[in-house]
């Protein structure tokens, strides 16, 4: 019998994750020390790489955009008690949805193609999460198993289509033709240049704005709508949901679809924003790191945006770091991300317990 750990909410959402990151960096520092580099210098390089230049910030936010989408996707499913680990597959299918619209309709002006392509990405992502949801509701097959199987299905399906159906004719690499300019989501530096503001070039595009809008949407949905109430009731207590007349099956389907649509929007950033064509493996692990982002952000949109920026910094700063310190390879950066995930997610109690202890003592002496 353990007493529940009680700490003030502000500390729960800010202090604990920050401490988790610091501990992760300290441990990562030991690893850097182990390979014979200076961990302080490495940290400085990493932060400089991520935030030290306009270009660096642009890249950081561009990576963060991906994490926001996949993090929100995992979070909304969490609220309904569902564990969607199929973000990769849903993003891949989102790419397919966007590409099908662009390949067929990119002769139309941007104000028709772009919204349709975004909707296409969301619809295909939603479909790829809806089917596992349906299988759970009707057949009892757990979404944890089916969503991960659907990742492989999506990957093989897109390979098949790129090689045999929608790939660029005469090309050896499995990818589509480049979409027309009307199907390109503007870069932020392009958009700002339109208003006469000059910033350094980076892949950061207007998807970042969409990601922030999606965060606000999820915040309103979860905490300020009747649907959100139903989703949270199902997540916290299925028996209470049944009692309240909330259909668990219906909520499962709706939530999985929303979750999949969010994951599908990763394709908006990668395909419509940057690549301008559909190619293989553009989701490159963002779907999985979304789980860590959601955990670290406590499934709250504000936390998710902050956690996404942190992971964006690790990606961007890590790349710079591996240029400057060749002994710190890309794999090292993956290891550091892993440590952050470990301390923020899995070993949460490790940080939380001492923090709770400190607060308990403070309260005691204060009273």
């Amino acid at each position: 019998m353990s007493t529940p750990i009680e700490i003030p909410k502000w500390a729960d959402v800010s202090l604990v994750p920050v401490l988790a990151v610091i501990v992760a960096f300290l441990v990562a520092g030991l690893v850097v020390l182990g390979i014979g580099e200076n961990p302080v210098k490495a940290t400085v390089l990493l932060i400089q790489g991520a935030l030290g230049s306009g270009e660096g910030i642009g890249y950081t936010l561009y990576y963060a955009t991906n994490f926001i989408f996949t993090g929100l996707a995992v979070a909304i499913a969490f609220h309904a008690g569902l564990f969607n680990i199929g973000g990769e597959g849903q993003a891949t299918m989102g790419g397919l949805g966007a590409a099908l619209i662009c390949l067929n309709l990119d002769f139309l002006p941007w104000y028709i193609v772009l919204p349709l392509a975004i909707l296409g990405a969301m619809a295909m992502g939603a479909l790829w999460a809806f089917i596992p949801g349906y299988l759970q509701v009707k057949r009892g097959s757990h979404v944890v198993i089916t969503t991960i199987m659907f990742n492989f299905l999506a990957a093989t399906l897109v390979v098949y289509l790129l090689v045999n159906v929608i790939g660029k004719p005469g090309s050896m690499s499995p990818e589509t033709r480049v979409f027309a300019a009307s199907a390109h989501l503007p870069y932020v530096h392009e958009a700002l240049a339109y208003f006469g503001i000059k910033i350094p070039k980076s892949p950061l595009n207007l998807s970042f704005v969409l990601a922030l809008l999606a965060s606000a949407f999820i915040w309103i949905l979860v905490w300020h709508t009747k649907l959100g109430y139903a989703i949270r009731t199902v997540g916290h207590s299925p028996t209470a949901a049944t009692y309240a007349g909330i259909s668990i099956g219906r909520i499962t389907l709706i939530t999985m679809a929303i979750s999949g649509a969010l994951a599908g929007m990763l394709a908006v950033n990668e395909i419509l924003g940057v690549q301008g064509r559909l190619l293989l493996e553009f989701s490159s692990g963002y779907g999985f790191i979304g789980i860590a982002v959601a955990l670290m952000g406590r499934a709250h949109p504000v936390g998710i945006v902050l956690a996404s920026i942190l992971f964006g910094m690790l990606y961007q700063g890590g790349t710079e770091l591996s240029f400057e310190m060749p002994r710190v390879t890309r794999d090292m950066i993956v290891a550091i991300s892993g440590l952050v995930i470990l301390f923020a997610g899995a070993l949460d109690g490790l940080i939380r317990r001492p923090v709770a202890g400190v607060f308990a003592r403070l309260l005691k002496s204060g009273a």
Partner: protein
Amino acid sequence: MPRLTDKVAGQAPAIALTGIDKRFGEVRANRDVNLTVAPSSVHGIVGENGAGKSTLMSILYGFYEADRGTIHIHGREVRIRSPKEAIAVGIGMVHQHFMLVEPLNVIDNVMLGAEGGAILAKGEAQMRAALAQLAETFGLVIDPDAIVGDLPVGLQQRVEILKALVRGADILILDEPTAVLTPDEAEQLFVLLRTLAAQGKTVILITHKLNEIMAVTDHVSVMRRGEMVATLKTAETSPVQLADLMVGRHVLLDVAKGPAKPGPVRLSVEHLVISDTHASLRVKDVSFEIRAGEILGLAGVAGNGQSELLEALAGIITPTLGSIKLDGQDLITLAPTPAERREQGVLHIPEDRQRMGLVPAFSAAESMILGFQSDHEFGTGPLLSTAAIQSHTAKEMDLYDIRPRDAALKTAKFSGGNQQKIVLAREIEHHPKVLLVGQPTRGVDVGAIEFIHKRLIALRDAGIAILLVSVELDEIMSLSDRIIVMCGGVITGERTPETTNDRDLGLLMAGVTERAA
């Protein structure tokens, strides 16, 4: 039942707690508590929820350490920092919710955690010998090879007691042991407790039920708001005095109610059959009626089909056969879901408020709209207005005296009584025609019980048809206008409170019908 005379002077008390203080954050759960328990006696501890009795026992059993104070066991000062250390000094605990592994047999359950080494056979032989010894000394007979899940609840409890005794417990703490027992099983438990005390064991009995205190204890201690307010000889006190001490004011134990004025039939249930997911029948051909302005009490030992019946009436589960009619209209086809039943005015205070009636992780305001979350009152269109639900909740909190008056506080942080008042307020304020009430006072303190009972009577007088499902016979007897009893999924008899007594109902609950008797 013979009462033991007081022990010889000079013998050290089995337990002596001195100046125990325990604080959780802002709350002082125990303040300067002193408790002396004579050896070879049964000592009762009573108090409202949150009075600090569980905290005190948790300190004694090593779940918590006291901030201040000392513990003496048989005259020797000890520090108890974990249940393991409690067991080492001879303290055993029987929890309200059994800590048993149901698919394993009795001997495996008793051995679990005390296997006596890597080789099971040797430990098992020793354990069998120990069980045989205990059976002889205390009359605790049980088949060591029976599968625990197959045993009736009364025997499962014996396994828990055996577990403690086998580990050398000299002092046995029982937390609400009769909550799950039939009156007959409870009687057997009391005989056992007396035997244990007669053979030199010391028993501490924590309970809400004052008649049990009167029946079985030698001494009784009363706690209120973390303090020990009195320790009395049971022979020299009365239930009324104990209740007043618990609450700190005079409490009406009997509910004052006038005669019912039943109106037309509101709810009629005909030949209802309910099967569970494994297709075994839980309710077999049950029929009854409830009139407007009457309380129909449904008595029975937990697990005899009452829960399924209640859930079927509320629309949560669909019956296999039979009909449920409200004012002559068939609800099963007309309003099959819980939401539709609610619209028809069939409201439900569920038996398990933690799992069904509330969402513990929600704020009080959010729990206050559970089931009514789609009402226009709480937000236009798809939106849910936090301000609207909080002001609604603040109003209900005043009306039902729900404490603390904090609509944003997490539901789990309210006491059992106040949680139940949240459910009660929510359902009553939505104007029921029929109110289905399951275990309304389970885990609720005396003061709140009085409040809840008065409300139910007032609703009856306002012309609402009420089905009251309870395992508390006192509650059934004092509130109901008519009583039906269920056993094994069938109604074994119908009575009125005037023409029956506990013994009669107890027989019906055990399935002994008039014909069989």
